[in-house]
Structure formats: C-alpha cells, structure tokens
C-alpha cells in the first residue's frame, strides 16, 4: 500500500493506494501555521482501520518551502560572489552581496587568483553582521571547484559552526545568477527543512509506520525525505507537480493533454506532451528570484469560480480579482460559480441567489439572467482557451540552437483536456469542445494530487562535463572530478560514463533501484580545433531519471 498526502491551499488530502485501486481518502482543512500537524491529522484519519505494517511508502507533497519563502520565514544568509569578468553583479537582483576577486573561465581555467586578505575581510564582515549561513558562488565554478572550495574552507575556519553552501554543489548548469539564487535559498531553508524532516520521521515512527518517507519535488519526482534535506528548494511547487502526476496516473499513457486545474481564484495550466509532462525551459521562479530548480511548466491564470464578474461600459470582465465568495454562497457579487448554478451546470450554492447574481449582470448588459450566465461562462472558457493556446505557442517559440531542433519542431494539438480541481467538472467539457479535444474529468479528480504524490517515482539528474584536452571530467553537483585518457572520447563513451555516475549518485540518494530508468536528455560534443588540428573534445551529457509512475500503479 502506498500513501500520498498533498497539502493544498484550503484542504490537505490524503489517499491510500493499493495496486491500481484507491483504497481510502481523507481530507482535513490546511493549517498553514502548522503543516506538520495538519499532515499528521490527515494521516491519522486516513490510516484508521488500516494495517500500517502493510504501508510500503509514504509520499508528502508540502507547501513548506513555498510558504517559508513567501512569508519571509527563511534564515538570513550572507552571499559571497566570485563573479570574474562580465556582468556587474549589481545588475542581478540578488540583494546584498560580498564580491571577491578571482575568476575562472568557461574552460575551467583560473584567469584571476583569489586574494586571501579579501576572504578574511569577508569573514569578519559576516561575523560582524552576526550571520551564520553563507552561500559562496563563483562564475564557472561548476567547471573548476577550486575557488569555491578554498573560500568555503577559509570561511569555515574563520566562522566556526557556520553553514556554508557552495554553488557548484547546488547546480552544475550554466547560469551564475540562477545558481547564486538557488544556493542562497538552499542555505536559507536547509536548517528549518531538516528540522521538519526529523520531526516528520519521528512522528511516523511513533505511529508505528516504518515505511520509507519520500517528498515530492517540483519536477514531479520523489526523493527520500532525509536525502531531500540536501536540496530543500527542489520541493517548492510540489502542488502543481502532484496534480500533473495525478493526471498522468488517471489517464492513458503516451497522449498529449492539457491539465486544467480550476480553483477559486486561479486556474493552473500544464501540458503533457506525448505522455511526458513539459518542464519549464529554465528553472522555476521563486518569489523574485530565478532559480535552477527543475519544475514543470505551469501557467497560473487569474480566473476561477470565485473571480469577480464586472461590467463596465457594456463590457463584461471576469477576474482577475476576487470580491469575496460567490453570491450564491453568501458572498457579495456575481461570479462564474453563480453563472454555472443558473445554467444548471452545478448544484453548488443557492439557486435563488445565483439567479439574483446573474440578473445583476443581465441588467448591465441588457439581457436575461440566462443570457448573462452564458456570457460569463463563455468569457471564462475564452480566457482559458486563449491561455492554453499561448502556452502551446510559447513552447513552439522556445529558443533553439541547432538546425535540427528548428527544423523538427512541429505545431502540436491537444488530444485531451483533463480537469482537476473544484471548478473543473462543468467547465472542462466546454474548453475541450472549443479545442477539438476529448474532455476528461477523472473519477478521482478531487484527490488527483494525493494520488499523484502516492504513485510518483523518484527523479534524478546528473550533468557530466568532459574536457579531453585537459583530460578531465566533472560532475559539479557531486563535487566530483576525474581523469579521462581518450582524447577522442565519443558521445557514446561519455553517455556510458554518465550512466555509471548517475547510478552511483542514485545509490547514494537511496533510489538505486531506479537507476536503470535513466535516459540521456542532452548530449553535445565539440571538437576543439587549435591551428588546423583537433586538440581535444568537449562533451556534455545530461542523464536523467524523468518523472514517471511507479510500475506497481496499473492505470485506471
């Protein structure tokens, strides 16, 4: 039996899954001030009458990090940058930072040395500010870790007990400001997250649940709770990830679907292309910071069942703001929920009040309440369809750097529109009809998120960089480097090495049994020509275990 718990905005849902059947569900209201307690409440309710010894896995999808960052409850961190030549670090919106001399170039060559006196000064400055957490990030330090390591060591000895995060361990991908932001957030959340992970592990033990605990990440993958403490930021936005994984679990494999999660004030849109959820081209935006966190491409549109319906100058507008509850549920003004009630498309709220709401709109538009309701619904559907089409268009317009990428990208259309969330059942068929797609509102749509968490498999990525002229390979995230002898190493050899290194990383993170699922998601090779002959090769391989479902989950 598998357990999934998803912390949502209003309710926390929990589900027990056995094979491909949903055995039991439970809901409790979300307590944003005590997520641990509310998850445990949901769990306790869920496992009543269930033999906890049969639980094989518990997966949590929590807004812990999201809330922590949104509410500013993170720990203060000193940011130390080694930017080298290029952009003025002030042009990055990273806040206060200490800037050190020293530079590494794109080949990992040291082009300017560190100044020890500056590092010492930095340490005293950090000490004077009373900070005990430091993020050290250098440009191109993923290609040569020496500067970050040296600065880290010196700060560590000057600031006993301080938590020091090094950029290259957080992300091996290009993009220094994103790496700096991700490292900063990691340092700011790690301690509190570790506390949460400990408390959760203890609480489950107390309940006699000895099954391994996993956490859901923004890329739809799971990771053992204790290991996830190394990379807490990756657990942000697990809610949308859970809902997309839930849709994956509840629909046919291999199809192209639009996931529409219609809530009270926002509608979240996501794409599943030929059975693979679309990841955002770059990392996620967390508050004002752009990060390297891999996340599904989710578009939040400010429209939902509770959006305020207004008429000005004869023009109807739905949203973007909310003006209390729908009138039919005791609110002040008309909303799409009232319109659906009037059209007999839902049974939520009071019919008389809904009629009154649509009459208010009808008076302004000079039409009947039914016509007004139809117009409101059309406006909501128009907006959702427009945004879905924009999302496909944005995907088609993502930059590409190779001829074949440009030549092979074709326009795609959705086969299905899959609805989850409270507002989905009446509206999704309308959206689907407009797009010429099939409408799917799965039976378990209300707990799709919890199901998604329960049955998501682990994900893992590894970036391998090889420079055969220097005879070196490196995996930044692991702080790992080694020698390569063959100057004419082929991409196939590089991929083989990446597979081996990924398997080792998977074992270290407690998900070794999934290593065989890894695939090459990016591979490039360049011959370095110096003079008129080949001096060596640069190879880059990205090996990933992508989001997917546990094999035990037979699809419904």
């Amino acid at each position: 039996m598998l357990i999934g718990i998803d912390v949502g905005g209003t309710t926390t849902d929990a589900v027990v899954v056995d094979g491909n059947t949903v055995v039991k569900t439970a809901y409790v209201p979300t307590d944003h001030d005590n997520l641990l307690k509310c998850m445990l409440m949901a769990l306790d309710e869920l496992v009543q009458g269930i033999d906890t010894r049969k639980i094989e896995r518990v997966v949590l999808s929590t807004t812990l990090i999201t809330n922590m960052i949104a509410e500013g409850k993170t720990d203060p961190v000193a940011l130390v940058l080694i930017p080298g030549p290029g952009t003025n670090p002030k042009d990055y919106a990273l806040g206060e930072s200490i800037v050190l001399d020293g530079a590494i170039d794109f080949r990992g060559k040291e082009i300017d040395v560190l100044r020890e006196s500056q590092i010492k000064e930095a340490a005293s400055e950090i000490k004077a500010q009373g900070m005990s957490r430091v993020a050290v990030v250098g440009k191109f330090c993923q290609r040569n870790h020496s500067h970050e390591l040296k600065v880290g060591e010196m700060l560590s000895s000057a600031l006993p007990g301080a938590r020091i995060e090094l950029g290259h361990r957080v992300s091996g991908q290009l993009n220094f400001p994103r790496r700096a932001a991700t490292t900063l957030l990691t340092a700011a959340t790690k301690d509190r997250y570790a506390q949460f992970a400990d408390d959760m592990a203890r609480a489950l033990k107390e309940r006699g649940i000895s099954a391994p605990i996993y956490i859901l990440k923004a890329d739809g993958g799971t990771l053992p709770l204790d290991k996830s403490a190394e990379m807490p930021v990756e657990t942000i936005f697990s809610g949308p990830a859970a809902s997309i994984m839930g849709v994956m679990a509840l629909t046919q494999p291999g199809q192209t679907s639009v996931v529409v999660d219609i809530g009270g004030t926002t509608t979240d849109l996501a794409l599943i292309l030929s059975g693979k959820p679309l990841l955002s081209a770059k990392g996620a935006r967390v508050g004002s910071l752009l990060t390297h966190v891999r996340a599904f491409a989710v578009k939040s549109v400010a429209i939902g069942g509770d959006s305020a319906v207004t008429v000005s100058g004869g023009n109807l507008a739905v949203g973007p703001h909310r003006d209390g509850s729908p009138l039919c549920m005791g609110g002040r003004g008309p909303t799409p929920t009232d319109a659906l009630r009037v059209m007999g498309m839902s049974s939520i709220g009071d019919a008389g009040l809904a009629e009154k709401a649509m009459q208010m709109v009808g008076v302004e538009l000079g039409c009947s309440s039914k016509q007004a309701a139809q117009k409101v619904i059309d406006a909501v559907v128009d907006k959702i369809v427009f945004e879905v089409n924009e999302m496909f268009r944005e995907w088609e317009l993502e930059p590409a750097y190779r001829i074949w990428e440009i030549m092979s990208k074709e326009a795609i259309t959705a086969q299905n529109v899959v609805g989850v969330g409270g507002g989905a059942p009446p509206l999704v068929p309308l959206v689907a009809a407009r797009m010429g797609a099939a409408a799917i509102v799965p039976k378990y749509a209300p707990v799709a998120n919890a199901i998604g968490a329960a049955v998501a498999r682990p994900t893992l990525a590894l970036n391998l960089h090889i420079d055969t002229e220097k005879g070196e390979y490196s995996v930044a995230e692991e702080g790992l480097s080694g020698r390569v002898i063959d100057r004419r190493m082929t991409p196939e050899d590089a991929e083989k090495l990446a597979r081996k290194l990924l398997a080792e990383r998977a074992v270290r993170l407690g998900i070794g049994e999934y290593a065989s699922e890894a695939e090459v998601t990016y591979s490039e090779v360049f011959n370095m020509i110096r003079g008129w002959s080949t001096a060596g090769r640069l190879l880059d391989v990205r090996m990933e275990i992508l989001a997917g479902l546990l094999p035990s989950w037979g699809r419904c």
Partner: protein
Amino acid sequence: MSSKNKSRKTGLIFFPAFDWAISPTHPEREERLLYTRDQIFEEGLMDLPSIEEYKPRLAEKKDIARVHFCVPDVESQVTEAHLIAAGSTLTLADALEKGEIGNGFALVRPPGHHSMRVVHGNRGFCNINNMAIMVEYLRTKYGHKKIAVIDTDVHHGDGTQEIFWHDPDVLCISFHQDGHTLYPGSGFVNEMGGPQALARTLNIPLPPGTTDEGIHYVLDNLIMPVLDEFKPDLILNSAGQDNHYTDPLANMRVSANGYARLNEKLAPDICVLEGGYAVETALPYVNTGIIQAMAGLDYSHVKEPDFVPGRFVQSEEMKREIAHTVSQVQTVWDERYNLVEEALEGLGDFYRRKRRIFYDTDMINENQEEVVRLCPDCAGYMTINTSAQRGYGTLNSAFCVTIPRGACSSCRDDAKEEYAEHLDDRRIGYVLMQDKDKDKFKFYNNMTRTEKGY
C-alpha cells in the same frame, strides 16, 4: 513610421548553428560560438529584464531572391543554416517594427557580408548576405527609405557595398584593416559607389595595429557626424568581431571594451554578427560587451583575462595616417552632390562596368558585365551578364535583370524586354529577373526551358 520607441528592450537571437560547419577544421565551424554560449548563458543575460530572447525563423526563398541572383536558383545556394541565420535578422526586424524591442542583436552564424548580388558559391565564408536581406525586407515590408549600414568587421564589407553600390538611399560605411594587408583586398577610399550614389559608399581603410583609440577616432570624427547629416531611418551594424587583438586572421588591436563602447556610441537599431574567429580569447567577451552596451547595462566589468587598459598604444605616425584617411573620406562625403553631378555629366544613357570576382572558399572565378540605365525618372533598371567557373569544373552563366523599386514604365518595359530576349538563348544557362517594384522574382532555366518564381 517606425514605432520602435515603444520598448527599450534589447531583442537577442542566439543561433550558433552548433550542427553546421564549412569543413571540420575551418574557422567557420561548430565550435565558433561555443564559448560565447557558455559565457552569455553563465552571465544569465537572457534572464535580465532588459533583454528578450527570440527564436529564429527560416527566411523565405523570396527574401533571398529580393537581394541575390542565386545561380541557378536559391535552393542550390543556401542550406537550412543560411535560411535560419538570415531569418533571425528578419525576426528581429519585425520585433523592432512592432515595438516589442528597442534594438536587437542577431548573434548568428553563418555570416554574410562578403556575399554579393550574384551568388555562385561561398565567398569569404559567406553564401548569402544576412544584412542586405534584412535591409531589403525592412524597405519592402515597412517602407523605410534611408538606411545606414556600418560594417565594423575587420574585413572590408565588399558584398554589402556591391549590393547597394548604385543605391543613394543606403549609406554603406565600412572601416577595416587596409586591403593591402588583408582579405578581400578592397575597401579603399576611392571606392565610393556608382555614379548615382557616389559617397553613399564610404571606406575607411585602417593600418594594421589600429587600437580602440583609432576606431573611436573614426567614429567621433567621421561616422557619427556623417550619420547626423544623412539622417537614416535605421542604423544597422554588421558587427564583425575580428578587429580584436587576439583574432587569428587579422592584425588589429581592438578590445572587448572598445567594441562595447562602439555600440553604445553608434546605438544601432540592429546588429548582425559577421566574422570574428578568436573563439576563446575574444568572442565570449566581445559578445557579452556588445549585448550589455545595447541593453544599456554596465559593460565596464567585461575584460579579457590578459587585457590591461593602456596595453595597446598607437604610434604618432599611425594616428597621423588615420587622421589623414578620415579627412579624405570627409572630403568625399562633403563633395557628394558635386561628385554625382559630375559623374552623370560624363555618362550617356547607360553606365557599364566589367568585373572579375573571386570566391576564395569555393575557388570560383566569376566574370561580370553590369549595365545600369541612368534614368532621369527612376533608379534605372540593371542587367548583369555573369559567368563562373569552379576550378576546372562547369561553367555556369546567367543573365540577370533588376527592375528597381519605383521603376518608371519605360525602365519596366525595357527590363522585361531584356528578360524575354534572353530566354531560350542557348549561350546562357539561366535568365533571372528581380522585380523589386512588384516584389516578384523569376528564374528561367534555358536548358530545360522551365521557369519558376517566388
């Protein structure tokens, strides 16, 4: 009118064509923009609010035919890589005209500025002229009249010069390392344009070893004042990067900071990458600097690892030589109206010139005879008789006719007659016609007697 002031964003298209090379060890190979990719991605430039990245599109064959007489046809002369590089400039042109961006940089390869009007093959690493294709697109689609192209590549922009040679509305200014010492061996002060467009081509040959100081002297004392007087709708920069002090194919002493400052000063509406082959030591830094300067960002932190300010100093003699060249070109510009008047006085109804053109990359020798009608009512139609031989290989010949934008009826009729007269003439392989006024382009194969058009 252009609505370009709606946005101050800098549009960027980065198309490194990582799967295209002239040959594996050629300077124009896959690796050329690799370190530039690493640098600008690591800088996170695409994430900055002042920069908007665009995806390139493929140029249409018609966009190529509007500029070039490709022999025998467009399909035989361009690959997908060329269409994407040219299409990148058009994507940025559209974004500029729609007001989505305030300026743009097509950081793309393969380059184009050595490609001339007639194309038999690759010349100076170029098959089609991305810059000229964008200029003609901007004029046809958006009705721009006066455009200035400043070629800041170390090599003379001979292709662009040749394409706009007779066009008084396109000001082509190229500064470059002296043609006595560098490919393509042209670009002297006395190359000033056709009789109707004299001084609308300005060449500033510079001595090997010219530094930041030298090129900024040329900008401050010549290019900027000339632009102030010419008042173009748009300023475009053929932004080669091989004036850099580490370029392996040339001998100048310009730094990344010098290039960034140049673009800040020139404030081009669109930059198009041309050459630059110091793939590790120059391109990552020069491109970063240009992008920052265009986006109004601080570029003072961009510095090559081995550069110290004051590293390169020009001798007094070199300064005098540059100043002398600048004053000569200034005189040409100042005399422009007289020059045209005098030239036309001495000519009859037609202007003719014969030329030999060598395609270094493809080892092709081309012979051309160009005839332009000196029409009082319009720009005059033009014909080009061209034949080319590749090594000991086949001879390709074509007769090309251009009807200019705004052609008078007599030039239009005569041009059409010239086209018709050469059809089925077995001494010529192909007959091509550009009707720029109607934006229609024809290719006729005299051997198969088939016509196709764009």
